[in-house]
């Protein structure tokens, strides 16, 4: 048995050569995909595969699944046969159901909150029962919600440091150094061995932007991710490095939470909100704050996304005269004052916005908060407005769940949505096909622009800083909407 395994593995390993080194800008918190609430997916992808993944244009492509069917509240997924976890356990519907049910119980992954339960219909058919219609369920299964953990590891309290999945690589704990580097080596039981091209894959934790840049410059890493900051701008100008602008990324926006004017009466006036949207010089903001690496934004989606509406471009193009005119027409021509929460990374953004708003007589007091508390405080009535980022590849249904519905997470004043907005948000849930959903969500974005309680400022794409060799390596494929490289088929730079 072991001889046969070694022989089989030997054939595949003949093509496994070299090392690829990737640097992640966040520290690893957990390698348990179902406990993963933020960044850190590059640490998971070598080991864990999801039921589906995103194709190059953002379409849902089966990975551990082979197909799906959605019928109302019933989702049936057929699974790939002949797949096993790296610990030798078989991947089947029982294992997949156990994973989904654990994800429901843990309740960390937003995309699984519409799932009632999962069960095995037969060995390779998984049946998922939804609580409510969810056109984005397959989309959710492309990410951490669909990543499959070996059944034996599901109850391991240390699964966050002992990941066991079906992926092309296995986690090498003995060669990894906690807080510094995670080492992955080929999975000898992988179901698609031709796709293993590396002898070793490393993910380095280098949160300091300058240190990460220096690592890239000296060839200590082959690629890494960056936000739109000074170091990314340096990479963009360096002749021997390349800055890759990838789809997805972060949309920075202002949320008028008190849109019925409970605390700040002026916020109930749409003319005031529109004046604020018009007063923002997004070009200047992008150049000064985001080093010219972002693009202007007037809607929640990014260019290239299926819900993106090009006709909304420039809907609130900077026009100070018009903004002042709207303020004069509003019930608040003398202006007003309000408080805006801030965390250190948003301080410069808010200072710029405060300057723009001051031009139309609105004084925005910036209130510093402890890092890590902005999201929680934004869900309370402590502030009449807030500012957040939103991942532009997130399914549009979450725009409604976060901002529109009366019980939306970031609607702390429980403002009632307009009938038009509510109808469009619900229309978007009527189909699973993005082509059928797109018209409703485009209209929803237009309606949001008209009501102007969400003021979109910029979209910063996902930015990869790579060496010249990585830029010229044809096997390097960036995952759609993710800050990670697709490891299936990745080979080392020459």
């Amino acid at each position, binding site marked *: 048995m072991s001889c046969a395994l070694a022989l089989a593995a030997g054939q595949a390993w003949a093509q496994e050569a070299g090392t690829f080194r990737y640097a992640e800008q966040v*520290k690893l*918190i*957990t390698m348990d995909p179902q406990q993963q*609430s*933020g960044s850190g997916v590059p640490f998971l992808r070598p080991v864990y595969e999801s039921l589906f993944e995103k194709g190059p244009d953002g379409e849902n492509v089966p990975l551990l699944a082979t197909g799906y069917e959605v019928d109302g509240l019933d989702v049936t997924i057929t699974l790939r046969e002949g797949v096993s976890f790296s610990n030798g356990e078989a991947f089947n519907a029982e294992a997949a159901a156990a994973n989904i049910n654990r994800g429901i119980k843990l*309740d*960390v992954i*937003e995309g699984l909150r519409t799932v009632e339960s999962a069960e095995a219909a037969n060995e390779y058919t998984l049946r998922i029962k939804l609580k409510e219609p969810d056109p984005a369920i397959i989309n959710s299964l492309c990410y951490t919600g669909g990543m499959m953990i070996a059944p034996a590891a599901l109850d391991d*309290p*240390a699964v*966050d*440091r002992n990941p066991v999945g079906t992926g092309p690589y296995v986690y090498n704990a003995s060669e990894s*150094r*906690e*807080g*510094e580097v995670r080492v992955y080596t080929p999975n000898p039981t992988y179901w698609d061995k031709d796709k293993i091209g590396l002898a070793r894959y490393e993910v*380095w*934790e*280098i949160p*300091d932007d*300058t*240190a*990460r840049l*220096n*690592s890239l*410059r*000296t060839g*200590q890493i082959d690629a890494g991710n960056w936000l739109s900051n000074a170091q990314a701008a340096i990479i963009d100008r360096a002749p021997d490095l390349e800055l890759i602008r990838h789809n997805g990324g972060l949309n920075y926006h202002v949320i008028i939470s008190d849109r019925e004017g409970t605390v700040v009466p002026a916020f109930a006036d749409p003319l005031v909100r529109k004046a604020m949207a018009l007063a923002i010089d997004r070009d200047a903001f992008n150049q000064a704050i985001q080093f010219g690496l972002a693009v202007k934004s007037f809607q929640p989606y990014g260019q290239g996304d299926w819900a993106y509406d090009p006709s909304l471009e420039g809907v609130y193009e900077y026009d100070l005269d018009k903004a002042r005119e709207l303020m004069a027409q509003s019930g608040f021509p003398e202006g007003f004052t309000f408080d805006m929460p801030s965390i250190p990374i948003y301080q410069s953004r808010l200072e710029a916005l405060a300057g723009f708003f001051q031009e139309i007589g609105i004084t925005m007091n910036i209130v510093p*908060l*402890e*890092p*890590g*508390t902005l*999201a*929680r405080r934004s869900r309370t009535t402590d502030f009449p407005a807030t500012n*957040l980022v939103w991942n532009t590849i997130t399914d549009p249904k979450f725009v409604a769940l976060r901002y529109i519905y009366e019980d939306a*997470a970031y609607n702390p004043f429980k403002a009632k949505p307009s009938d038009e907005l509510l109808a469009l948000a619900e229309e978007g849930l009527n189909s699973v096909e993005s082509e059928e959903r797109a018209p409703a969500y485009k209209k929803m974005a237009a309606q949001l622009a008209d009501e102007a309680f969400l003021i979109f400022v910029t979209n910063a794409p996902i930015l990869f800083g790579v060496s010249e060799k990585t830029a010229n390596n044809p096997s390097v494929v960036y995952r759609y909407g993710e800050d990670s490289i697709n490891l299936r088929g990745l080979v080392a730079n020459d």
Partner: protein
Amino acid sequence: MFRLIAHRLLALVPLLLIVSVLTFSFTSLLPSDPVDLILGDTGTQEQHEMLRERLGLNEPVVVRYFQWLGRAAQGDLGTSFFNSVSVTSAVMQRLPVTLSLTFVSALIAIIVGVAAGIAAALRPRSWVDRFATLGATIGQAIPNFWFGLILVAVFAVSLRWFPATGFTPISTSPWEWLRSVTLPSIALGLSSSAAIARQVRSAMVGVLQQDYIRAARAQGLSTRRVIFRHALTNAMIPVVAVLSFQITVLLGGALIVEQVFAINGLGTLAITAVRQQDIPMLQGLVLVMVALVVVVQLATDVIYGLLNPKARPS
């Protein structure tokens, strides 16, 4: 001497207790909540409450402290709030990294500082003295993180003589270890070498004017013997006290320099723990750092006693 060591080690116990109480109290006063950071933007109120319960954050601070103390007394410093990594293993894994950095920095600081101090003291008001004094002033004024960035730009990025980031354990490759600690240690040791140089110069100038030095010279002893055997031994007494303080400074400075060089030592762990409000990790780290400082001071006292018989405990 044995009594001194025993006395100091005994004094460590109440000191660690006081420090642990203070750390626990201060971290509990922080307005932010580690649960926010663990659950991220999408955590529900119910999840917040469940997690607070699981982490014991619903208990009063006093109860939490005594629970922690009970476990710590048995050698269990707890587990990180954020993952299953034990505090002891996280700290012990990084301790050799920071100690490597501090040791090499201290070595550089002593060699450069003592050499510059002696050179300046031997020719007071000469250009050597002025140059050394100016160098010491600049060395103390330059922030170590900035100097580190300059070193990386020149010696790592341009010349490629040293790695720009990371740390290689000495057990993996002594040569790579030396390459990986050289630039951060120079950056870290710069201000300490300046402080030591000033102290050595000042002490040496005073000692060289003493009668016993004149007597040694009158006896025809060589300049080298006079300086190293008689003058430096006595001049080093105040320097040892400065050195003790400087090693404590180096331990603190490592927090910043480790960031510049992406070195995964106690400093990086401390910064992550502070950002995440990982209270068990912070608690463990502070205790280890305090113990280290006490050990350094104890070593200083022992060396001080060896150099100066008058300072030995009766």
